[in-house]
Every structure is written in C-alpha cells, then in structure tokens.
C-alpha cells in the first residue's frame, strides 16, 4: 500500500492538516470525512497512540493520536483536535490532528525523500516531502500510520 501512495509522476491531491507546526498531507482518496473534536472513549492498555474510540454515526472507529504516533509532544490540554476519518482496507480509522488545511495539488516533480533530520519514528511514517512555496508538505503513509 505504501508504494501505491508514493507518488512517482504527475499530480496528486493531498488533504492537508497541521500537526505541531508542520503541514502534513494524505491522499484525498483515503479521506472519508473530517470532523471536529469528538467524544473519545478511552481504551485501557491500548498502545499509547490509540487515543480512544469514537462513535461515527453508530459505527465504532478507532482514533489515533497522530502527535503520539509521530513522536511529537502532546497537544495542549485546552487545544481541540480535529478528526480525520480515513478508510483503509475497507475499515474506517481516524487520526487526531491539530487543524485541517486545504486540499493541495502537488506535483511529483516537487517530491523528495524524507529529510535526514527526521527522527526514527516519524521517518517510518513519512513517505517524503513536497516542496511547496515557502514550506514543506510532508506526505503521510496512511497504511503505516493506522497500524498503531
């Protein structure tokens, strides 16, 4: 799946979001919907990245705290998260992120391997970076990111 997500040629559309000051993107095809903060049911003994379970119109969906998954510091207690629901292998999973941004057209020509400065944990989950005007857009490997 990760190879499918890796852009080679042409353009792609990425739904972008903010996380700890960085801009990330996932391919729009994977994104089912974006919701504002949801009530989470805590799951004791779950891996730390599992933030809990949310009720998505009667469906139970696991929420993954992307900050934890990417080894970033936890979100400020008073900051509300945004929920991005993605669909992988027919199963809905959701990510908690800081804020949603635009859908961006990216060109494979602007793509580069992950910068060497990325630390180990994030490195596994980042496919690479698109050089946008004035900033980098980090492409998230959705299928790896959901495997919390």
């Amino acid at each position, binding site marked *: 799946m990760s190879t499918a997500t890796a852009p080679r040629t042409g353009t792609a559309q990425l739904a972008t979001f903010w996380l700890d000051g960085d801009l990330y993107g996932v391919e729009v095809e994977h994104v089912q919907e974006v919701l504002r903060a949801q009530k989470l049911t805590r799951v004791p003994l779950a891996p730390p990245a599992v933030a809990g379970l949310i009720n998505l119109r009667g469906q139970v969906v696991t929420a993954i705290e992307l900050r934890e998954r990417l080894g970033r510091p936890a979100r400020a207690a008073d900051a509300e998260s945004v929920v991005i629901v993605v669909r992988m292998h027919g199963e809905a*999973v959701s990510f908690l992120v800081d804020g949603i941004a635009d859908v961006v057209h990216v060109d494979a020509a602007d793509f580069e391997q992950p910068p060497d400065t990325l630390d180990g944990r994030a490195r596994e989950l980042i496919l690479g970076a698109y050089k946008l005007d004035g900033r980098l857009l980090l492409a998230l490997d959705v299928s790896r990111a959901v495997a919390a």
Partner: protein
Amino acid sequence: MDGLDDIVEDFLVESHENLDQLDRDLVALEQDPGSRERLSSIFRTIHTIKGTSGFLAFGKLEQVAHVGENMLSKLRDGVLELTPHRTDALLAMVDTVRELLGSIETAGGEGAVDVTRAVELITAAMDDEPAPAAEPAAAEPVVAEVVAEVVEAPVVVPAPVAVAPVPVPAAAPVPAPAPAAEDEQAPRRAVADSTIRVDVDLLDALMQLVGELVLTRNQIVQYVSRQTDTDLVRAGQRLNLIASELQEGVMKTRMQPIDHIWSKLPRVVRDLGQQCGKSVRLAMEGNETELDKTLLEAVKDPLTHLVRNSVDHGIETPEARRAAGKPAEGVLSLRARHESGQVVVEVIDDGAGIDPARIGESAVRKGLVTPDALARMATADVLQLIFAPGFSTAAAVTNVSGRGVGMDVVKTNIEAIGGTIEIESEPGTGTCTRLRIPLTLAIVPALTVECAGDRYAIPQVSLQELVSLDAEKAAAAVEEIGGAQVYRLRGELLPLVRLADVFGLSSDRHDGHVVIAVLRSEGRRFGLVVDRVINTEEIVVKAVGAQLKSIGLYSGATVLGDGTVALILDVQALARRALRAETVERAEQRTAASVAAATARAGAERQRMLLASIGGGRRVAIPLDTVTRLEQIRTASVERVGSREVVQYRGAILPIVRLDRHLGATSSYGYDEPAPETLEVIVYADRDRSVAIVVEEILDIIDDSEAKHSDIDDMGLLGSAVFGDKVTELLDVRAAILAADPGFYAFDTAAGSPARDDLMVV
C-alpha cells in the same frame, strides 16, 4: 404440494435452481471445455441430485443422475473430453431430470417418465472414443449409429463431427422432453414462489441496520421521556414497539432449526457404530429449536465431533455393555432447547463415562499439568483438562475421531461465537457435554458497569450474579490470601479481580463499597470488582480495529443509548490474564469441595433467591428470575397519583409498592423520621409493564437448594424458609405487584410467567 414432505420440497426447490445453473454451465462449458472448475461444479450438482434421489427412493432419477455422474467424473478427470454431442447428452439428461422433478412435484412420484433413452444416450456418448474433437472421426459404424441418435448435433456444433451425416432420426429424443419441461414450468414455480432465497450478506446488512435502528430508538426514547408533548411520547412508544418487532423479525429471518445440522447425524452415528462394532440408537429432542444461521454453521463441526467422540470413546461395545449390566444398545441423545436467551445443546451418551484418573494421568504425561497440581484438582476440573490444547483422549488414535479436530478446537470454536462448553461425566453411566450458544451474535444482552469513569459492557452469558458490599461489610468479607483478594461468597472463596487494576487505572470509588460481578469462564468463577453497576441492556456488537484486538481484553465495542462508545469485555481473556496461575490453582483448590457439592446436587431443581431486608429485622426472599433490575431511586422523585406512589423511570411511570407497608413491617425509619435520600428498589417487569418494589436493603443472592421451608400463611407471603440460619419470608410476588398495580395482570389471560413464578416459590 401439501402431499410433499419438507425434504422433498426442499429438494425440488434446490434442484430446480441447480438445473437452471447447470444449463448455463453446460453451455458455457462448451465455449471453454477446459474449465475444470465448471466441470466440478456440474459434477457436484448432479452428484447431489443423485445422492438425494437415492435417499428419497426416486429410482429413475437416481439412475439418470448416476450415468450422468459417471460421465462427468470421467470428463472432470480428463479421461473423456467434452465433445458437443457429449454436451448434448448431458443436456438431454438435464431435461430428463427436470421432467422427473416435474412429475414428482405434480404427481408425487416419478410417474411414467421414460429415462431409458437418456441413459442410453449418455452411455453411448461415454463409450465414444476419447478422440480429440478436431479429428474428423470417420468413426466406426457403432459410433456413428449411436451418435446418430444423439440428436441435432449439427445445430449446436460448428465443427464438423462424426454426427454430421446422419441428422435425420435425431430430433426425437430431445424435443420430446423439452416441451414437457416447459409444461412443468408453471406448477414448479408454485414451490419456488413460496420461498425466496436471500443472500446472507443482505440479511447481515439488514441486521446491521436494525442494530443501528435499535440504538437510535434507545436515544429517541430517552429523549422523548423528558418531553411533555403527548403526541410525541405516543409516537416514541410506537417507534419503540415497532423497532423491537422489526428486530425480532429480522432476527427470525436468520433463524434456522437446529435440525438442519442434526439431520445428517443419524447417518454419521449409524456408520460410525457399524465401524466400531457398536450398536447405537440416536434420540433427538428439540429438533425445531432455532438459532442464527451463522451460529448454526459454526456449531456444525464441533457438534459432529462431539457426536463422533461419544460413539467412538463413550459408548461401549455390546459385550462390554452387557457385562456392565446395561442394554446392549447404547443411547446417544441430542437435546436442544432455549434457555434464558441462549440455546442449550446437550450431547448425552449412556456409555462408559470418562475416568478422571485416566484423564489426569494423560494430562500429566503430556505435560499439561504437574502431578502436584493434579493432586489438588477437583474431579470436575480434571474433566475440563480434556479441553486443554494438545490433549487427546483416544488411547489409540482411531480413524474415527481425532482427525484434526481435538476437543480444544471444539472449545475454541464454541467460544469464538460467544458460547460455552462444559462436560459432566459419571464413570460407568455416561457423559454429558453441554453447549450454550447465544441466539444471535449481533445483539446480545449485557451488563454495563463503570470503572474509573468509563463504562464497559459484560455479556450476560458470563455473568452469574452481582454482589454489592458496603464499606463495613466489604472490610470484613473481602480477605487477602497471599496478596490475592478473595471474597467469601456463601462459604466459597471467590478470587477477586479489580478491573481498575487490570487496566492500570485508579478506581474512582473511594467510599469502600465493593461491587462484584461474579463471572464464570472456562469452568472457573471469579469476581470482577467494578466501581458501579449501571444497568442491563441489549447491545449491538461492533467489531473493533486490529489495534485493539491485539490487546486481547475486548471482544468488541458497542454504542450505548446515549451515544457513548463502550468496550465489551472479553471475560475469558480477562480471566486468563488476571488470574495468575497460582491464584487459579489456589482458587481451584478452595472451590473444589463446593464444586463437587454443586455437581452432586445439580439434578435437584435450584432456585436463586434475592434476599432483602424490609425493616424491623424481617427478611424477605424473592425469586431472582422475577427480578428485572435492582435500582436506587431518589426519594424526592417519588410522586403521587391518587393514593398510589409512582416514580418516573426510563420514560415510563412505575408504580411503587413499599414492602414494609405491604407486609406490615415496622419500618426502620418512622414516618416522622426523615426518609432516606434514596430507596432501594427491585424492578419487576412483564411485557411492557413494570413495578418497583421498595425494600430496606438488598442483602444477597442465595440458592434455595437446602433451605427448610414451612408454610406460614400470612397475607402477602407464601411461606418461610431458613436461609443462613435466619428465618426468611417468601414473598408472594404476584400479590405484591397487584398491590402496586391492580391492572398489572389484566392482560395476562394466558397465565404466563407470573403464575409460574408463584408456583416456583412454593
């Protein structure tokens, strides 16, 4: 159609469908003669028809199908090649089969349908040289002659084959059956029309939707209960009712009688019996008991295995039986029944029983248990070793049982569908294996509890009882043995597992109260300490993602009435995880005596009673199965309607009966004293009506097995009994309820459960 019995009818419907498929398959096969898959499918269809017709004694049908099968098996195995005229022969066979089926349906028998021609056709087509079709066989006269009869080959066949020169006499055989088949179209639909085949996936999807509807209904009902608009309330109640009926209806569509999987067993037993030189009679009870199709499928193999086991290992040879003073013929009974929302299936044999000593010895030899541990185990627990992975009872592995599926697999399979399995055996007299299977997987009754601020659901299947201890009692009753907490439950030590500790969370219950859910898993009991018991509700089971499955503590999740997600606890996993090996052994040791005692009196009818105090030192026992729920209500929420007290509860008006007043006890709090802030209430519900019975305090739940009864005929009582050295009055539930709600049984003309409850108390 009335004259046809069910089996024949099923056979007809199925065969007609299969034949339609067969026509398509055969034609498609002609385009793609190499398709082994298609050939196999055709072969299977004909094979099935042959088998069933033989079983139903339709000789002609069997005869036709038999030759067809012969040819097909050769085609499938590549001995013969499919040529167009062979296809024709097969099609002719299909037509003949159809004609026969039509005759069976309309006339109830095979009638005068002539099958010889079809048989000859096929036989001839089979004898044909397996020459490649491409070779223009200027065939031997015999072949030509035969083939000639075989029909209008030229029409179908593009390639010139041997048949070409002699088309003339051909037309006869095939057209003849063809119109006949068409004639049969009309009546045949009669059978087909009355039933409809529905994709199980569609039913699953429906079930899913109904689940959602039930949840939404719960939410709306909760919301409506806070409204005053009567129209809205009425509409809400109607929605409530309809949703329940719909749920029931959809569940029914997935129900099938257990007979579907039992019907094959007589044969299995007979064959096995012969093979083992044993004479076995199979008795079946409750064939019509229905359960969910998916579950039925899941139970099929385990059940067959159990039956095989019983015949192979359980029932003795006639000689051994006679020597033991038993009739030469062994009896294997299958019993199925509904019991408290579950289906109970028992496999009982009157064979040699299981010798615990042999089981233990074998388990030690296989390293499943240490001799030390074995010595400390109770007999009942030793028997459970059968289910341990890597255990096989067969002294010698026979070719009958022990082929792949061991008892551990049986157990795993049963548990995978939320069922339980237990085994009882008496050496010399027989063995009983009991399966408890939920009615359906999608919606299960569960107890919701709270722990560290979150709610969790515990499937009722594993729940045995609830114990609530106040701080004072808890301090005395919860003891520690080597660091492990235990509670003395009616003299039996119950290992306690604190859910908060398992989760590594801190409980938010600091008042010293202890709420214990007594759970049973794999033949072991343990008490799960939770912060609070919320209530019981029907929950819709949702799968959880892979990330959570791997934790191994949750069997799923559900959405509660208020929209909150709650995790469903996997009681088995919890037990395995929380009860450390030594704790388990200790528990086994301690419970050994009582387990044995319990087994000994298992035959006696046992009734569980709820013990409550009503003030003035008086204690009342209420049959537990009449109790729907235990609640606390705020005294302030009690309202008056005329001379009666009521309370609003879950969107309904609940009449209240105060037991102390009803039975004339001196209340512990006088009328002038301030009433307590909350009332302990026992909710009794039947159909849509409920009443609340107020008691002073709920004390315990006990077994009514050894109590001494006497009949003191006082108003509102059925008698008294001695429970735990104290005289306890047996409440006449019906009278108490009538005191609260005289109309309660007004619609109960059929003398339903309440009447029965009365009887059970006496």
